């Protein structure tokens, strides 16, 4: 049976499901992007032909590279669902069934059972719902039902058609509507509520570390937590309570990361204390206070340089070293002093002692001379 999938990533309301304008679905959770995990999950369910329709943004390129073997289409956020319908019309109709997935949220649907239920019940459309009856943004449509698919995609997979079969998902799901849900997804994965495995090695019970991460001596990393690839955790930093520090981030000396997600390539300044937050792209979303603020000072929260940028900076610095030193030597005013021998240094009076006053050695009349200095 030819079953295909169309994954729609992004879209939604202006501030929903995103931070710093970037969709959570394209961000990394415990070392792997949500969209890549969704693609893997579809493959595990026996679906090999997957088409991703993604919102074009700053991280969509990296998200595309993380999903191998899928067809990837990028478009403007407002055009997302129309593009999804177009993809269904052009390639979905050839399939027996098409699984439509809205990746605003994360839902651990058993796709094998879903397709089996759809086929055995002879349904034209099957909508996946949670135990309370709310749609989870996943549906299965027969390939020939183009109008049904168009209707579902127009409603952004948020409505259940009247004639649709319902499939109850008992697995973990998270709407990823905001930073709170995003933080919760990472925490739930670390404590085993979600079937998301950290991408790294469990270096001690409950602490996973990605490749190339460096944790300096003196840093305290407490279970459960995740340290991503190429992360630097400097001395005296503390990472605790289900925190996750994603790829390439840097936690400077003395910073405390408590129940917090540090997004990829972010830097946390020395001595900062972050708790119950999502931090990244120069923004801090504080979950307890329900606010998200921008941080301009990169000594507080910044963006780490990537490997190629660092290499370029080092190469430029090396190339400029000789000319800079040459120019410095050429135009420098102060000459180098030759060090004197000990005997000479003792005999020669200090230059300051021979400094002349305005009256050529005489003190002003109003001064009482208490003591004269010098070698006289």
């Amino acid at each position: 049976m030819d079953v295909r999938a169309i994954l729609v990533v992004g879209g939604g309301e202006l501030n929903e499901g995103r931070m710093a304008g970037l969709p959570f679905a394209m961000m990394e959770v415990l070392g792997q992007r949500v969209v890549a995990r969704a693609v893997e999950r579809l493959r595990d369910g026996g679906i090999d032909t997957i088409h991703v329709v993604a919102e074009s943004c700053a991280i969509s390129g990296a998200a595309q590279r993380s999903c191998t073997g899928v067809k990837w289409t990028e478009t403007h956020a407002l055009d997302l669902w129309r593009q999804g319908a177009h993809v269904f019309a052009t390639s979905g109709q050839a399939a027996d069934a098409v699984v439509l997935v809205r990746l605003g949220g994360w839902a651990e649907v058993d796709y094998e059972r879903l397709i089996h239920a759809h086929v055995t019940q002879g349904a034209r459309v099957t909508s996946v719902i949670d135990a309370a009856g709310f749609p989870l943004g996943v549906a299965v449509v027969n390939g020939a039902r183009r109008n049904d698919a168009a209707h579902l995609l127009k409603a952004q997979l948020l409505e259940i058609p009247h004639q649709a079969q319902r499939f109850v998902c008992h697995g973990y799901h998270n709407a990823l509507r905001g930073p709170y849900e995003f933080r919760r997804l990472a925490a739930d994965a670390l404590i085993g509520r979600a079937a998301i495995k950290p991408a790294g090695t469990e270096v001690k019970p409950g602490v996973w570390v990605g490749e190339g991460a460096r944790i300096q001596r003196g840093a305290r990393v407490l279970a459960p937590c995740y340290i991503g690839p190429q992360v630097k955790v400097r001395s005296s930093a503390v990472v605790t309570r289900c925190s996750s520090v994603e790829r390439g981030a840097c936690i400077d000396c003395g910073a405390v990361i408590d129940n917090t997600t540090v997004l990829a390539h972010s830097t946390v300044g020395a001595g900062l204390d972050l708790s119950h937050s999502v931090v990244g792209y120069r923004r801090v979303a504080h979950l307890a206070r329900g606010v998200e603020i921008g941080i301009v000072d990169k000594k507080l929260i910044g963006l780490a340089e990537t490997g190629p940028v660092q290499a370029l900076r080092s190469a430029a610095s090396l190339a400029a070293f000789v000319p800079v030193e040459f120019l410095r030597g050429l135009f420098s005013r102060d000459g180098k002093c030759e060090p004197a021998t000990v005997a000479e240094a003792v005999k020669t009076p200090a230059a300051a002692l021979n400094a002349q006053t305005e009256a050529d050695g005489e003190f002003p009349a109003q001064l009482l001379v208490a003591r004269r200095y010098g070698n006289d």
Partner: protein
Amino acid sequence: METTRTVISKHLPERVTAKAARTFLNEIEPILHSDRPQIVFDLSVVKQLDAAGVDMLLECMGEVMKRDGDLKLAALSPQAAVVLEMTRTDRLFEIYATASDAVRSFSRFVPEVMRNQPFSFDRTTVADNTQGSSKGIA
């Protein structure tokens, strides 16, 4: 991931003041200076914990870290929990409900034990407008 090294569990006294902390520290010094110590402090009977007591805990933590070991806390009494929270030192330790959970955590990670932690999302107080719908497996 399994480790077969011995885990030592010690009960802290009822009053952890300056004098008691010094005595306790002298008592456990040989354990702190052993190779890669694995220690659990049981705080179930602690009724008084002052700054000196907190200082003692931090000193023990520093000593075991120097030797690539670890120190975990278990069965915090309400008094101890309040003081540790107030001084923000509770974030520096792995804290377990029982000493046996803490001992077990040295050899393997037990996610179920973490689900009732104070920092767990089931118990975190969050502004109403930030709460979303996230449901886990029962």
